[in-house]
C-alpha cells in the first residue's frame, strides 16, 4: 500500500489526456460517485433494469455493446487520471477487476439462458431437447473437457503470475499503521459496512447471519420451480433478493471499500487525489437526539434535555429496533407473505423473516444516514451496545 500511496501523493498530473472538458467530466463523476448518489440513482436502477430488461440486454449484440461501453469507461479512465490509474493497477486490486469482469460475464451467461428458457416455457415447449437429455460417457466427453479446462486455467494462472509480481511492502511495523488500513479486498464489503454499523454488527452479527442465511436458504425457498435450469420468470422473488444481497450489498460495497475509500476512510471519487489531511467533520446524530431535541435539530418536536436514565433516553430507538426485528416478521406473515407463511410453517418462516429484516436494516440505515446523518438507533455506550 505504501507504494500505491506514494504514487498517489503525486496528486495527479502527467495524464495522457487533459483539458477543461475532461476536468468537468471528472468533477461530475466524482460528485456522483458518493454512495448517497450512486447507490440509489445508479447502482439500484442498473440492478432493476438488469432484472426487468433481461430479455433485451442479454441479446449478444446489446451485451457486447454494453461490455465495450463498460471497458471504455473502466479502462479508458486510466488515460485521464493518474490517481485512478494508481488505484486500479495496485497488485492486490487487480483481482477485483478480474472479479468484476467475470461476474458480469457469468451474469450474462445466466440471464441469456434464462431468457431463452423462459421464452420456451411461455410457448409451452420443454426446456431441454432430446440431444441434451441423452447420456454420454464420461470418458471421453467429460474427461477431455476437464483436461482442456485444466490446461487453459494453468496457462492463465502462469501468465498472470509471470506478468504481475505479488506485492510486498516494507517489513511489518507494529507501531506504524498505514492510513487507510484495509482488510483483504474480499472482506471489504464488511469493512465498508463499518461506516454504518459498529464492529459487533458489521464484523460479527452480519457475517454470521450471511453464513447462516446461506445455509438455511434451500429451506427458505419453497418454490419448487426452476430446479436445474436457468430461469428468472419462475423465481422472481428468490433471485431478486439473493442478487440484491450479492451484487449490491457485497460486490458494490467491495468496490466502494477498495477503490473509493482513502485515508481515515474518507470517501474519494474515482478521479480524486487521496488527501490524507482532509478533515471531514462528523455531524452524525443519534435517534435519541432527534426524539428529545427535534425542535432544535429539524424544527419540530420536543425541546428537552436528554433524560439521565439511559434506558429512558434510548427508548425510541429500542422500540424501533424491537418493532423492526420482533413485530415486522409477524406483520409480514399476516399481510404480504401470508401464502409463504402458510406453506412454510411458523418456525421456518420466522427464521427466514429475521434474516430478511436484518438484511433490510443495512439499506435502511444507509438511507437514514444519508438523509438525516443518523448515527445510531440505539446508543448505549454503557453496554457497548450501539446500533
Amino acid at each position, binding site marked *: 500500500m505504501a507504494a500505491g500511496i506514494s504514487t498517489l501523493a503525486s496528486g495527479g498530473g502527467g495524464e495522457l489526456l487533459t483539458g477543461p472538458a475532461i476536468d468537468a467530466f471528472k468533477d461530475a463523476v466524482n460528485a456522483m460517485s458518493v454512495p448517497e448518489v450512486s447507490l440509489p440513482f445508479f447502482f439500484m436502477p442498473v440492478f432493476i433494469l438488469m432484472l426487468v430488461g433481461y430479455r433485451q440486454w442479454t441479446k449478444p449484440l446489446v451485451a457486447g455493446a454494453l461490455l465495450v461501453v463498460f471497458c471504455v469507461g473502466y479502462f479508458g479512465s486510466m488515460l485521464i487520471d493518474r490517481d485512478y490509474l494508481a488505484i486500479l493497477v495496485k497488485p492486490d486490486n487487480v483481482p477485483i477487476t478480474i472479479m468484476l469482469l467475470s461476474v458480469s460475464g457469468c451474469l450474462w451467461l445466466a440471464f441469456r439462458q434464462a431468457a431463452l428458457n423462459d421464452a420456451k416455457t411461455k410457448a409451452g415447449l420443454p426446456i431441454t431437447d432430446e440431444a441434451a437429455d441423452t447420456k454420454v460417457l464420461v*470418458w471421453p466427453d467429460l474427461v477431455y473437457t476437464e483436461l482442456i479446462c485444466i490446461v487453459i486455467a494453468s496457462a492463465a494462472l502462469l501468465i498472470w503470475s509471470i506478468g504481475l509480481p505479488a506485492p510486498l*511492502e516494507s517489513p511489518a511495523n507494529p507501531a506504524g499503521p498505514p492510513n487507510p488500513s484495509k482488510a483483504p479486498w474480499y472482506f471489504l464489503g464488511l469493512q465498508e459496512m463499518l461506516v454504518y454499523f459498529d464492529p459487533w454488527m458489521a464484523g460479527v452479527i452480519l457475517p454470521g447471519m450471511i453464513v447462516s442465511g446461506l445455509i438455511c436458504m434451500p429451506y427458505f425457498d419453497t418454490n419448487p420451480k426452476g430446479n436445474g435450469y436457468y430461469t428468472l420468470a419462475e423465481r422472481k422473488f428468490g433471485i431478486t433478493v*439473493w442478487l440484491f444481497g450479492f451484487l449490491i450489498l457485497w460486490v458494490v460495497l467491495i468496490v466502494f471499500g477498495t477503490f473509493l475509500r482513502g485515508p481515515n476512510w474518507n470517501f474519494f471519487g474515482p478521479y480524486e487525489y487521496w488527501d490524507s489531511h482532509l478533515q471531514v467533520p462528523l455531524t452524525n446524530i443519534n435517534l435519541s437526539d432527534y426524539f428529545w431535541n427535534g425542535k432544535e435539530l429539524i424544527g419540530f418536536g420536543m425541546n428537552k434535555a436528554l433524560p439521565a436514565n439511559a434506558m429512558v433516553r434510548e427508548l425510541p430507538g429500542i422500540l424501533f429496533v424491537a418493532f423492526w426485528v420482533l413485530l415486522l416478521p409477524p406483520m409480514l406473515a399476516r399481510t404480504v407473505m401470508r401464502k409463504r407463511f402458510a406453506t412454510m410453517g411458523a418456525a421456518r418462516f420466522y427464521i427466514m423473516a429475521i434474516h430478511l429484516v436484518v438484511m433490510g436494516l443495512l439499506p435502511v440505515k444507509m438511507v437514514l444516514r444519508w438523509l438525516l446523518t443518523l448515527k445510531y438507533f440505539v446508543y448505549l455506550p454503557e453496554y457497548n451496545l450501539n446500533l
Partner: protein
Amino acid sequence: MSQLIRSVLDSIFASQAWNSIFRHGIPRDRRTRVMAVMSNLFLHLHPVAVRKSGIRLSFTWCMGGLTFFLFLAEAITGVLLMFYYRPVPEYAFSDIIALRSHVTLGVLREIHRWGAHAMIIAIWLHMMRVFLTGSYKPPREFNWGVGVILLVVTMLLSFTGYLLPWDQLAIWAITVGSNMGKATPFFGMQGPFTDMVMLPGGVPLVTTKSDAAYILLAGTSVGENALMRFYVLHCIALPLAAATLIAVHFWRIRKDGGISGPL
C-alpha cells in the same frame, strides 16, 4: 519409423507392468471407456455416463471444477513454499524476499497468491451458478450447506495466508480483521454484554487476555504468536478441513443424482 513406434507401444501395452496398472485396453470402445472410469480411483469420482445437459460449459461454467483445480494448485505450491518459509518474525519477511531472488522458478509465490485470489473469485461464481440454476433445491439442500462451509473455509484460508509475508500490508489487514473479534457480543472486550459474562462472585470471565480476539491471535495484538497460529491454521488445519469437506461435497453430488438438470 512408425512401424518401430507401433511395435514399441504394442510391447508396452502387452507388458505385465502396464496391465497391472491399467486393467483395460486403450479406451476406444464403450467397454474399455467404461472400464477406464470405473477402475481409476480419481476418475471414479465421476459416474460412467452423464446427462449431456449437465456437463455443458454454458451450464456449469466449469466453476466447481476450476475451484477444485485451484485448490490443488494451492496445495502443491503451498508445500513447495513451506520448504523456504519460517513462520517467525525474524525470518518470515526475509524468507519471502529470498523466494523471489534465490529460488529457481521465482514465481512460486505469485502462483500461490494469485491462485488464492482466483479461487475466491471462482468459488463465488460457482455459488452464483448453483444459485441461479436452482441447484440447491431438493434433493441438494445439504450439499449447498456443505458448499457454504467450504466457502467460509476458503475465505479463512486466504485470510490466514495474508498474514504470512509479514509486511505492512499483512499485519494491518489482519489487524483490521481480527479487531472484529474484540467486538464479539459476550466474548469480546469491546463487544456488547461482555460485562455480564462473569463467574459467581462477580469475577469477570472475559478479559483482554481471554476474549475472542485473544484466542484468535494468542496475544492482544498481531505478533509472533499470531503468526505461528495463522501458519498452522493455514498449512494444516484449514487445508485438512477443506479437503475433507470437498470429499463430502463430491460424494454428495453423485448421491444426489449427479449434476442437476431440468426434470
